[in-house]
């Protein structure tokens, strides 16, 4: 099988992780990493070309695929540039915070006929894949309820909050995707309660840090998401899917599986600290799937539509919270605009 030549645009935290995961992946090689703040020695020592200018990536005919890992406001522009240059694109979520901007990008991608995969990595987590498999295999019958607990270990700094698009677009968007992924259904309507209970500066920045969101799905099932920006015991990521024939539940994962028994009580390990630790394997698996879809010329497992729809749900949830009423989710454009 042909090795896919890739480049990474944006060498921050997630870009570095993706680049490292691509190194040594049998079907891929990393040729170039572009970032205005790049430390060249970090990359040149491993045979990767460092550059300050993303144009070096876009203009390089040898590069088959580009990973967009730059700051969110640049995702759409870089995705479009890469697509126009005929390169397949893996773009970190969200493509943009404005759904219209995302739609434009998806049109450009569709017109270019390249593949686009969006970085909803959690779909590739082995535990959550198992949940999905239980639904697909009918182990729990028809889905009645999807319940997601997603709590971060610590709140982000207020300046991050201000540019994040709000908790529903920044954090809950993963959970919206997970509801769609697990249920195999679309979200019709949402109702959200939000609160500022963790950090008043988040409230001052116009956001919330605690929320519960109820979702009605087109197949009749219900879903509920619970979020907090701070679980002091670690990253709290649990999901339950309940159906007509039973339920399946995913628990937190810990760095080690021990139980300490002393006079003070019985103690287990805290959950893995945050998403880099908890979803480590998913970051590898999502890139393997992306590379594979290029090699096999199949549709990527997370499409541009999959990138757009959770955003629409997030917009509806934000409005629901502000107006304190249930809000219907905007219908996405027909899937005919989808890249092959």
């Amino acid at each position, binding site marked *: 099988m042909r090795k896919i030549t890739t480049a990474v645009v944006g060498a921050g935290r997630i870009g570095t992780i993706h680049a490292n995961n691509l190194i040594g992946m049998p079907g891929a090689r990393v040729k170039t990493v572009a970032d205005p703040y790049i430390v060249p020695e970090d990359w040149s020592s491993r045979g990767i070309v460092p550059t300050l200018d993303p144009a070096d990536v876009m203009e390089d005919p040898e590069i088959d695929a580009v990973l967009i890992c730059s700051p969110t406001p640049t995702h759409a522009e870089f995705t479009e540039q890469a697509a126009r240059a005929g390169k397949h694109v893996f773009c970190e979520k969200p493509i943009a915070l404005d759904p219209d901007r995302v739609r434009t990008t998806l049109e450009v991608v569709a017109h270019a006929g390249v593949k686009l995969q969006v970085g909803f990595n959690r779909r590739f987590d082995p535990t959550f894949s198992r949940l999905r498999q239980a639904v697909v295999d009918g182990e729990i019958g028809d889905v*009645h309820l999807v319940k997601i607990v997603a709590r971060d270990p610590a709140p982000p700094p207020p300046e991050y909050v201000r540019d994040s698009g709000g908790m529903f677009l920044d954090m809950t968007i993963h959970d919206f995707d997970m509801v769609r992924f697990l249920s195999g259904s679309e979200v019709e309507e949402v109702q959200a*309660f939000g609160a500022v*209970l963790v950090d008043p500066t988040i409230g001052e920045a116009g956001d919330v840090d605690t929320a519960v969101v109820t979702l009605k799905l087109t197949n009749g099932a219900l879903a509920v998401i619970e979020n907090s920006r*701070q679980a*002091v015991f670690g990253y709290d990521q649990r999901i339950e899917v309940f159906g007509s024939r039973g339920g399946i539940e995913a628990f937190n994962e810990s760095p080690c599986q021990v139980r300490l028994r002393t006079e003070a009580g019985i103690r287990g390990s805290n959950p893995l600290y945050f998403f880099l630790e908890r979803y480590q394997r998913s970051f590898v698996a999502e890139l393997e799937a992306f590379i594979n879809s290029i090699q096999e010329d199949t549709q990527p497992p997370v499409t541009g539509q999959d990138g757009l729809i959770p955003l629409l749900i997030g917009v509806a949830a934000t409005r629901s919270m502000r107006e304190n009423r249930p809000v219907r989710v905007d219908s996405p454009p027909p899937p005919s605009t989808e890249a092959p």
Partner: protein
Amino acid sequence: MKPTAVGVVGVGRIGTMHTLNLVRHVPEARVKAVASPRIDPAWADELGIPVATTEADVLLRDPEIEAVVIATPSGRHVEMIRRAARAGKHIFCEKPVAFEEERIEDAIAAAKAAGVQLQVGFNRRFDPSICRLAEAVHAGEVGDLHGLRVINRDPKAPPIDFVRRSGGMFFDFTIHDFDVVRFISGSEIEELYAVGAVLVDPEIGAAGDIDTAVITARLTNGALCVIDNSRQTNYGYDQRFEAFGSKGNLVVDNTQPTTMESYLKNGVFTDKPFPGFVERYQDAFIRELESFITCVRDGSPVKVTAEDALAAVKAAAAAKISALENRPVRLSDAPMTAGRTGP
């Protein structure tokens, strides 16, 4: 001090259970009489209960009887409370006292006027795990309360006849969850949003009720709360509770008949949860009666009042409106008549 003489009115499923619990597990009580239109005197005799009657009045007229347990069909609870109060008996009444707020207030007034105690059968408040959870929350073990989760799912959908006269899922089933939320949080439900669905049994839908629900709520202390309900799990009675706060999370998981785990080639297996509420809340059912009898004997206030029943009914009424009108409802805005019109 000799045991307190108690009468039980209504010996259906719950009345029978309470009678047996009093006889077997509450030595401070002595069941002197049981009353039911379908009473089996031989059964009473076997349990050493001297009086078995079809007339509740026989029991209410007995001056030796200090306290009554009301386990009649729900529709007769308020009437029985009034009669028992007039007869000067302390009262333990099964939930629901009534579906209508003003009828609960009547019951409260009747008990107050007669100067008798009135405890309501929100049994979960006496479950050791839920008590421990509530104590931990109140003691600040998880700091400020940010979130509560209640999972309440029945093992099998009830018969359709029961559904028709149940008052609807929010009044019949979720009412326990509204109470447990108040109990654990020590706070009131300020506003809620309820969605219902018919996913288990279309007949339940045809009877005008729902069998699946998600209720989210905002409490007066600011915490957010999620309740989910289903009428049918197939894997047992699913009862789980969590309290999340600024200093951590408390989890009460299902309890099982045995703790055995089987590690086999096709997976690791454990017992399913208990099959139903009778088994799951066995301790709670005993402890609520112990507590009631203690309060009757020493005059201390009962642990679950009719005001608690009233608050839970208000939440159920708000949930019903919320689901019907598809909007968040503040409890202060929910009209008092919401419970009156069937499910």
